[in-house]
């Protein structure tokens, strides 16, 4: 079964990234590297809510705090149930 980080990376690469050739790893800075625009982040928030049942509050859901899969996982740990990475 895909782990959480892989699911998020796959979603970002498949649905949000402007360059499908670029691999999204756990530490890929997908916003500051110009692969994903800030307006797409709401789709990532919805995905996290639907898939994992975690709602990231408004004040924490900034583009800077969601710039990589690793950062998103940090947010999910802070605001949701424990995330199983493996």
């Amino acid at each position: 079964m895909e782990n959480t980080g892989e699911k998020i990376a796959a979603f970002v690469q498949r649905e949000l990234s402007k360059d499908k050739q670029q691999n999204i790893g756990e530490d890929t800075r997908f916003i500051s590297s110009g692969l994903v625009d800030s307006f797409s982040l709401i789709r990532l928030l919805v995905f996290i809510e639907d898939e994992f049942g975690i709602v990231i509050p408004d004040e924490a859901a900034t583009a800077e705090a969601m710039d990589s899969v690793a950062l998103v996982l940090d947010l999910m740990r802070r605001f949701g149930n424990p995330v199983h990475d493996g």
Partner: protein
Amino acid sequence: MMAETLRAVILDHYRRHPGQMFVRCLQPDGTAVPISYGDVVSRGSQFASEFRRSLAHPGDIVVVILPHSPDLFCAFLGAVLGGQVPSILAVPSFKLNPGHYREELQALLERIDARVVVTDSATGSYLGLEKPRLGKSWILLADKLPVSAAPIPDPSIGPEDLVLLQHSSGSTGLKKGVALSNRAVLKQIREYAPSLCLTNEEQIVSWLPLYHDMGLIACTVLPIVVGIPVTALNPLHWVTKPASMLQAVSEYRCTRAWMPNFAYEFLASRIRPSQLGDIRLDSMRAWINCAEPTLAGSHRRFVEQYSKFGVRPETLWTCYAMAETVFAVSQSSEAVPPKIEWIDRERFQADNLAIPVEGDKVPSLEMMSGGTLIPGAKVKVVDNEYKSLPGRTVGEIAIRSDFLFSGYFRDPSSTAKVLRDEWFYSGDMGYLADDHLFITGRKKDLIIIAGKNYYPQDIERIVCSIQGIYPGRSVALGLDDPAIGTQRLIVLAEVQEKSLVDDPGLCAEVRKTLAGELDCVIDDLRLLPHMWLLKTSSGKIARAPNLKRYLESFRPDILQ
């Protein structure tokens, strides 16, 4: 007698009703910080006192780089109270390269001879502003400013003195400053306000940044002049939580909003009804579409999505505005709705004519007007020789009014290019029909993405500076995408070696560099072999033929 300066308007509010709310500053966690005119004058005077301490005299430029906060409003208005000329710049995004931004900022500060830069500790530290000055400009940190009472400044300023500088387009170092006098700003707002059919119970809601004319004039200065409060959201948080704007409308019973076209699509497509609960949007009297081409389809989708929450189609208005006329040139309303018509596509493309047709009979384009001219605005549509064209003929829109800007600040050559015989040549293309003004595009290439302007030459210069890209051989193109209500950014660049065609590493470098220097994201990037791009007979790489070739060659799936 009516106040002749913005400063006098603010002080009039302060004397008559110091407790009246000017702005409700909404924080990302949902808390609201109301700022009264008493607060504006008290905190603004503290700022003005510090500006004076930095030897900023009336007429000197004060640059404000602050995040959404009460101090953003108070620093801006503090400069107005002190007679200095404030100019708000965007807080650098975390995506931007701080060293590069600092260099560009310093070049801008020197060019406009800014006496003071007001920012905060976080931004100052991000930009590495460790010394008390950047070039010749003093750095003031708003969060370190004393909170002790300061006397209300009493500068000698008159209606012809500048009240603000508006920098809105281009990379930081190349921005042109639109210089606006007190007279022009007050005249515009007093002429514009009746077109808005304001009642005694109004409240504006805004998520717009204050470095943009729509955020600054329509949603900050206009509310002061006409005396209506604003509920202001943080633009950066609105992007990830667009529902917050609709929740604010419902909670505070807001009545007016100005938004660029893409926001109608964004709100219609990205919010789930479950996020909205039982909100009510029926307090809204006007959703005013402005700042990028307005699409009737975006209005339809917005109404379809939100009619069940109380949005009425007659509250969707349009406006045509620009910083050089302070703000509005034309406006539609409930009484004069935007005119929507279908025009013959071929006649439009071949003959520059807007001939109405029935939409399903011949290939056609749907046009929506920006309303009728506001009082005090004269418009003519001209050809390349500045000759006036008849109605329904597409040409450049020129404007004459009592509320034109004073010129681009310290840039007489740019000013002379657009101001001739008291007419301002906007660079926008359009036509007049039945008293309505229709905007069809830009004379010069300008890419507008989500209400933000990019000059293609800025993008091309940056792309061509990257190792591996053929110098001087790239084009940046804006492609209209009705599905998202704004433009997509296409970049085509020739590479120096065949092996670099569509090279993933070089693609990543181009994307990262553009994000770091201009904070923009390329929707489709193509690294092409040398000589792929088409040149004109004069040897220039022209954008229109290359857009056509791109569409024919790649049939991009971003449009599907």
